[in-house]
């Protein structure tokens, strides 16, 4: 295990590496590839925090929990609400801010406030040749040169290893409440969520699912702000959504907060050996789910008003699907790969894409649905430029 303690160290380690490296933050996202582990956990610390400028800068290995605690003390937050993968994947370790940025990890508030990439102000990184590169900065508006920071955000370390990130933060809302609608199927829940998001009442979460897969699904709408404003918008939103039936307003911020932590971390999927996540045109998700359900057995959840689909499969669902594929093998990993392939095929008919998040026993590194030939070619050329030896998380992004 390589654990550089500084950016210069990191550059040295990469420049002198003689084989593939597996880039790790806290190792909580289950993304290990073949290669010598290169861990960023030695590069930690918040280098700058200016609450009055809504800016925080931290070394890549800084634990997310440290950042959140620091922001919390000033009533601020990472507005993109990064998911903690540990409950779902059963991993241990400490999620790092570099890992969040490298995977562009966002939570339910993404639908209203934006994704991790939207709050990224700048990065420092080391590319596959060992060159130290700075991009962006710490100010909110910056169009000086190309935006390599966003290119790195979600590149899963395949173009460079982040050493420092700079993020815009937001004030923490004073309170929150959740409207809960029951007895809905996706055909009703998605129009409900989209109608809510189309109102001026600043809905900051629109989730559909149970918090245990054996329970009936419900639609949840979150409102955040000052007490008076939240109460006002609860009434306005209820009226605007009257056609969708009765709802219950959960005004206890602790209880509402628990709903959204569960939605963020998708704890409901923790018992499932298979999990995939799809990004899709929100209004197309009911049709997609209905098509899938005609031939395949999955357990589905929606977030971002329908724009994010979580698809889980239990052991028995995996076996059921294996029969559908007429698989003779008893290899569970093969079940998962077949299922991911079949779901990706369905997704191709929609304007979206699918990603494999959890596949029990699978050693397959290809977790991303293939892009068009043109983009695949550009991606390959880009990796060739930034990582000519192909040593950074090789194979993870194609």
């Amino acid at each position: 295990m390589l654990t550089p303690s500084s950016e210069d160290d990191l550059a040295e380690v990469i420049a002198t590496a003689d084989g593939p490296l597996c880039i790790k933050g806290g190792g909580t996202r289950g993304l290990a590839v073949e290669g010598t582990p290169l861990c960023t956990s030695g590069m930690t610390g918040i280098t700058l925090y200016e609450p009055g400028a809504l800016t925080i800068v931290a070394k890549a290995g800084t634990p997310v929990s440290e950042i959140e605690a620091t922001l919390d003390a000033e009533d601020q937050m990472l507005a993109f609400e990064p998911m903690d993968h540990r409950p779902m994947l059963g991993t241990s370790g400490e999620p790092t801010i570099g890992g969040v940025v490298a995977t562009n990890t966002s939570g339910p508030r993404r639908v209203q406030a934006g994704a991790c990439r939207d709050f990224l102000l700048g990065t420092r990184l080391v590319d596959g040749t060992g060159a130290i590169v700075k991009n962006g900065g710490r100010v909110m508006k910056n169009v000086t040169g190309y935006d390599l920071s966003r290119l790195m955000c979600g590149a899963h370390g395949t173009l460079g290893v982040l050493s420092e990130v700079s993020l815009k933060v937001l004030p923490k809302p004073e309170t929150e409440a959740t409207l809960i609608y029951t007895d809905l199927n996706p055909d009703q829940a998605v129009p409900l969520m989209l109608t809510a998001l189309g109102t001026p009442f600043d809905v900051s979460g629109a989730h559909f699912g149970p918090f245990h897969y054996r329970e009936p699904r419900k639609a949840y709408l979150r409102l955040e702000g000052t007490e008076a404003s939240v109460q006002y918008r609860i009434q306005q939103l209820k009226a605007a959504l009257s056609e969708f039936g009765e709802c219950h307003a959960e005004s206890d911020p602790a209880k509402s907060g628990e709903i959204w932590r569960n939605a963020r971390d998708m704890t409901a999927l923790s018992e499932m050996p298979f999990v995939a996540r799809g990004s899709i045109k929100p209004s197309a998700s009911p049709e997609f789910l209905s098509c899938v359900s005609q031939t395949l057995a999955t357990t589905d959840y929606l977030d971002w008003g329908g724009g994010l689909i979580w698809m889980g499969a239990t052991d028995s669902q995996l076996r059921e699907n294996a029969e559908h594929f007429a698989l003779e093998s008893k290899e569970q990993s093969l079940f998962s790969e077949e299922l991911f392939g079949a779901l990706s095929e369905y997704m191709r008919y929609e304007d979206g894409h699918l990603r494999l998040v959890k596949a029990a026993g699978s050693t397959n590194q290809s977790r991303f649905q293939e892009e068009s030939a043109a983009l695949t070619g550009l991606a390959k050329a880009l990796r060739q430029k930034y990582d000519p030896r192909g040593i950074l998380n090789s194979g993870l992004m194609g």
Partner: protein
Amino acid sequence: MEMPRPSPEILARKARLVSRLLDVLPEDAVISDEAETRAYECDGLTAYTCPPLSVVLPSTTKEVSDILSICHAEGVPVVPRGSGTSLAGGALPTADSVVLGVSRMNDVLETNYDDRIIRVQTGRTNLSVTGAIEDDGFFYAPDPSSQLACAIAGNIAMNSGGAHCLKYGVTTNNLLGVTIVLMDGTVVEIGGAHMDSCSYDWLGVICGSEGQLGVVTEATLRILPKPEGARPVLIGYDSAEVAGACVSDIIKAGVLPVAIEYMDRKVIEVVEAHAKAGYPQCEALLIVEVEGSPEEIDEQLGVIKQIARTHNPVEIRDASDADEAARIWLGRKSAFGAMGQINDYMCLDGTVPVSALPYVLKRTGELAEEFGLEVGNVFHAGDGNMHPLILFDANKPGDLETCEALGAEILKLCVEAGGCLTGEHGVGIEKRDLMGVQFTPQDLEAQMKVKDVFDPAWLLNPAKVFPLESSASRRERMKSAA
């Protein structure tokens, strides 16, 4: 400002090039007459001009692809152009280039309120995107001050901002998909109505790449439901430091205004003479706007005014109705026009951390004095995006050069203070040679690698963004290949 010498070989091949372009375009879409190409000799940075070899005005993505294929095969540089409002010279041609203007491509292709998106051809103007949806209660958030004229194509190229990005973000935060044509004519679809990218964040790197990676012909944009209402408050202070501290305290207090605008004494005086908005005469004036229901607005403005009072304001002025709100905004909105009436000016847009505003304003004043020129400041204070307006006389020999030298010093100051050279206008040619102040050669090399991937021959807008000497070897390679 130095530009590469035009290639004599290309100039000599003009007739052949024009004839090839006419093979794929209607006659009225190709301009090659020297008198007519002059209309495209510059953009909003009018100090620099150069008529191009030819101008093409395609109407479809297919035509854009055909044009780029031909120019690629001929080894001819292409300068993409939206509406030509760039203040940084992003659309300045060279004599051996073809200007590709997207102004005829201005259709709305799809509006979808369920998914809150609009898909447009990129020649459409920023304001007319909102114009197409406002009757249904929606708007497109980025609002650069040139929004009446500027095109979405240029907004994407420069990652344009505006007054309201403190809350709504800039173009990159509101762009969901593009149809982009690469220099070799390949048409690539990226993103769409879904929110996350499939693999790499292509949209992120295309947005703000100043037309150097491809020509974006169609865009899927995020639209938002209009807020219930909005109202500004005007706050005057007798020092820049105090106004800066007030901005920081407002943000720290947890209210997030949609806009915090700042004007200094120089600008207030000029604006008063021009627009008679009735502003108080003071050193620093803030306009803070919040959104929501009337009660929510009252609540937020209450907090803001309470903070403002702790800093001993000269005046706090409320807007009791729409008319008074309009009067508060009137002066700010007419500031650039008013300054233009009294003098020529150069407008910079370096951005600094909000905490550094007072220091940078003070230093800017000192620098102006050293150079013997006047500077007015009117800018987006909430995000530290300064807009020093350097006043000069274009008819006075040497004044433009002094103005540019002062501008360079102010931008260096912004970088030293932890900020950047440009917050929303882009680098273009204007700040190209200052890139070394903010970036190491290695940083620039990493950026140029992206262009190598998208446009290996360096034919798209080649002499922009990067200092000429750092891009020289790449551009030379392109020339020798041609």
